[in-house]
């Protein structure tokens, strides 16, 4: 039975949107925690650790997210346990987000001028003290813009999980399309919903980045 595209359809899509946002937030938290650990390890750890983390980042960044998703999805069932698509979605998005956030944050740490490290050294601060009082506070400030910018990428990338059947906004759109046969209405609404979430974040990210570069200090 073909339903017409109406208010109920929009509500159905909004449910999907809720899942999109939920998945994005979870990804950001888990990817963020791991990403921070990897970023610090990559900047300041022993050489073998730097190598492992760098390899991880390079490999993940050279693989399409969809393939990562499939590998997780089929890899998990290979382990013999049944995981719902949601688990595969969270795990693969976390792997993806960790690699990118670690890279971005390491970039922020390394963009702190050498001279700040030297000034901290000259004041006899120890390694952990340097990080805690001088380097990380500044790095975290610089990281604000890019981090919010990457949040936009996360939100958009949750759409890929539709292809393993996880019902977020895009999949909701596919399901709705199969029932209403009005792809234009359905997917334009879907696009508009993504836009409503992403555009403010993009705008905020640009504002944060501008603020950082205008306020550059010694």
């Amino acid at each position: 039975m073909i339903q017409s595209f109406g208010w109920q359809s929009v509500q159905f899509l909004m449910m999907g949107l809720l899942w999109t946002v939920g998945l994005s937030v979870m990804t950001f938290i888990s990817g963020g925690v791991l990403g921070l650990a990897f970023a610090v390890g990559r900047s300041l750890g022993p050489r073998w650790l730097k190598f492992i983390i760098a390899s991880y980042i390079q490999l993940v960044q050279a693989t399409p997210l969809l393939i990562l998703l499939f590998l997780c999805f089929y890899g998990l069932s290979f382990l013999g346990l049944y995981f719902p698509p949601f688990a595969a979605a969270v795990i693969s998005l976390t792997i993806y987000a960790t690699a990118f956030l670690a890279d971005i944050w390491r970039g922020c740490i390394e963009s702190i001028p050498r001279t700040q490290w030297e000034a901290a050294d000259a004041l006899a601060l120890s390694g952990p003290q340097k990080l805690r009082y001088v380097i990380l506070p500044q790095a975290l400030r610089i990281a604000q813009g890019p981090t919010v910018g990457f949040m936009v990428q996360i939100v958009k990338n949750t759409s890929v999980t539709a292809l393993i059947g996880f019902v977020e906004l895009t999949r909701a759109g596919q399901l709705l399309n199969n029932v209403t046969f009005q792809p234009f209405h359905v997917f334009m609404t879907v696009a508009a919903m993504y836009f409503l979430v992403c555009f403010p974040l993009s705008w905020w990210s640009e504002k944060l980045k501008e603020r950082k570069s205008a306020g550059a200090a010694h």
Partner: protein
Amino acid sequence: MTFGPVMSRLPELLAGALDTLVLSGQSIAIGLAIGLGVALARVNGPRWADIAGSIYVEAFRNTPLLVQLFLLFFALPFAGLRLSANQAAVIAISLNLGAYSTEIFRAGLLAIPKTQIEAGLALGMSRFQVMRYVVIVPALRIIYPALTGQLTLTLLGTSLVSAISATDLTLAGSMIESQTFRSLETFIFVAIIYIAMTFAFRLLYWAIGLWLFRRRVHTGDAATGMMLIPGRAEP
């Protein structure tokens, strides 16, 4: 894990890889042309061009590629234009890349100080000559890491076209997977091929950079392409 059934179908995967390369090549050519055009219009053109350009850019950068694919493939026929899956794939990816590369090119164009342009004009060069000799190559050099990073993202993004059954490596993998039931093994292979292609391309970009700029330039990985790493997008 048994790799045998997959290994025997390697030629299909490689054919799929070729499809991906062709798709990427076409989309990159068209996408970069769009990006450069819109960037030039935004920087040098009238205000309405700047606004129109920014609407295009924001629309495509704040919505997922997958949704853009669905709109082009499923919705367009209702307006009378029925595209094949492969056609829709090229157009969607080109438009998507066009939006991202517009911003990258714009950043490059804006990075050349006005004083350089004034010097060129003062020497009697036309605006066009100034663009060509003084602006474009240095601007390209500045944005090269971000641009090549974005091209890497584009290559990897082509995997989504399998969702509308356009021919590519991921689709080839999916077909093999559904027939051999060796899911994990299949996609491990697919991943390896994508990784190999990515690194091969970055080598190519590096070589091109060497030739274009007569100097070593960094090529970008995917994170650089997102223009999110402070300081990394510069050479």
